[in-house]
């Protein structure tokens, strides 16, 4: 029964997804580069100086997209991990493992750029408030997921243990997102509804969205490349890998 369900999805098996992923990677790389160039152009040359924060606000063009990505990637990772847990499909769990390091990197970049923004604006690199602390917990969840999987030799058991951790950790994502509403915090509110002069908001928003799209495309490309490496590593003794490496 479960075999039948799996075979309905043509690309749910590593051997058919491997070549497809390989074909998709260059397109996502190209999109990431083009959108990134456009986003940086808008962010540095079209968006005007902020009235209160001066040029320091330009950190927003990577801080906000990196923070969004760290949360989106976690949700997608948890969804893949949950799918792998429920349906026992190999590819789903591999996709979850492929996303974790990229998500961790964006969580780190969110904290790093946040610290560099906080210092000139708040006078401190770090405060233990709800937004910052919950984002730090997100980074630890990613690192915990990676470490837990690395600590278990048998891949399918590692997948299951990782999936449970990833699913439990999902509760942290809405906490991060709504933390600026639920608690008093130094951190400013949601960027999208920021009350600024209209002309300002438009170019700022455009730059931010272009950078976010660029990060999206980058994440997809990198996750596909990593998923392909994981497929080779895990299924190295199968026939399809022997043909694929020729």
């Amino acid at each position, binding site marked *: 029964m479960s075999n039948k369900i799996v075979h309905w999805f043509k690309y749910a098996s590593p051997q058919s997804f491997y070549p497809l992923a390989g074909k998709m990677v260059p397109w996502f790389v190209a999109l990431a580069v083009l959108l990134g160039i456009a986003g940086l152009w808008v962010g*540095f*040359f*079209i968006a*005007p*100086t902020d009235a209160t924060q*001066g*040029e*320091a606000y*330009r*950190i927003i063009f*990577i*801080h906000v997209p*990196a923070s969004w990505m760290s949360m989106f990637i976690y949700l997608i990772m948890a969804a893949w991990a949950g799918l792998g847990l429920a349906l026992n499909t190999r590819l789903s769990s591999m996709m979850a493992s492929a996303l974790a*390091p*990229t998500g961790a*990197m964006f969580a*780190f*970049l969110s904290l*790093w*750029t946040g610290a*560099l*923004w906080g*210092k*000139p604006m708040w006078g401190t690199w770090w405060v233990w408030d709800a937004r910052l602390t919950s984002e730090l917990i997100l980074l630890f969840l990613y690192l915990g997921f990676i470490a837990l999987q690395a600590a278990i030799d048998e891949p399918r058991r590692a997948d299951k243990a990782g999936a449970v951790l990833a699913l439990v950790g999902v509760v942290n994502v809405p906490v991060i997102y709504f933390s600026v509403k639920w608690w008093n915090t130094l951190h400013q509110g949601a960027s999208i509804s920021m009350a600024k002069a209209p002309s300002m908001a438009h170019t700022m928003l455009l730059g931010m969205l272009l950078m976010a799209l660029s990060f999206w495309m*980058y994440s997809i490309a*990198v996750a596909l*490349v*990593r998923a*392909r*490496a994981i497929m*080779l*590593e895990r299924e*190295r003794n199968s026939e399809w*890998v*022997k043909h694929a*490496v020729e």
Partner: protein
Amino acid sequence: MQWNSIGDFFAMGGYAFYVWGSFGVTALALLMEPLLLKKRRNDVLRSVRRERSAVNHSSS
């Protein structure tokens, strides 16, 4: 455009350290990750090929 010169651009209104510290580390991370992945992929390809040729030699 609000920059009068290249020096003006790099100075970032006095926030150069914070702005370039953010963009620099982000750029570094986004370049390092693909490079590390390329190495990971090459490592597994090489070891699978080596194993394969070892099996072929011993069987022939």
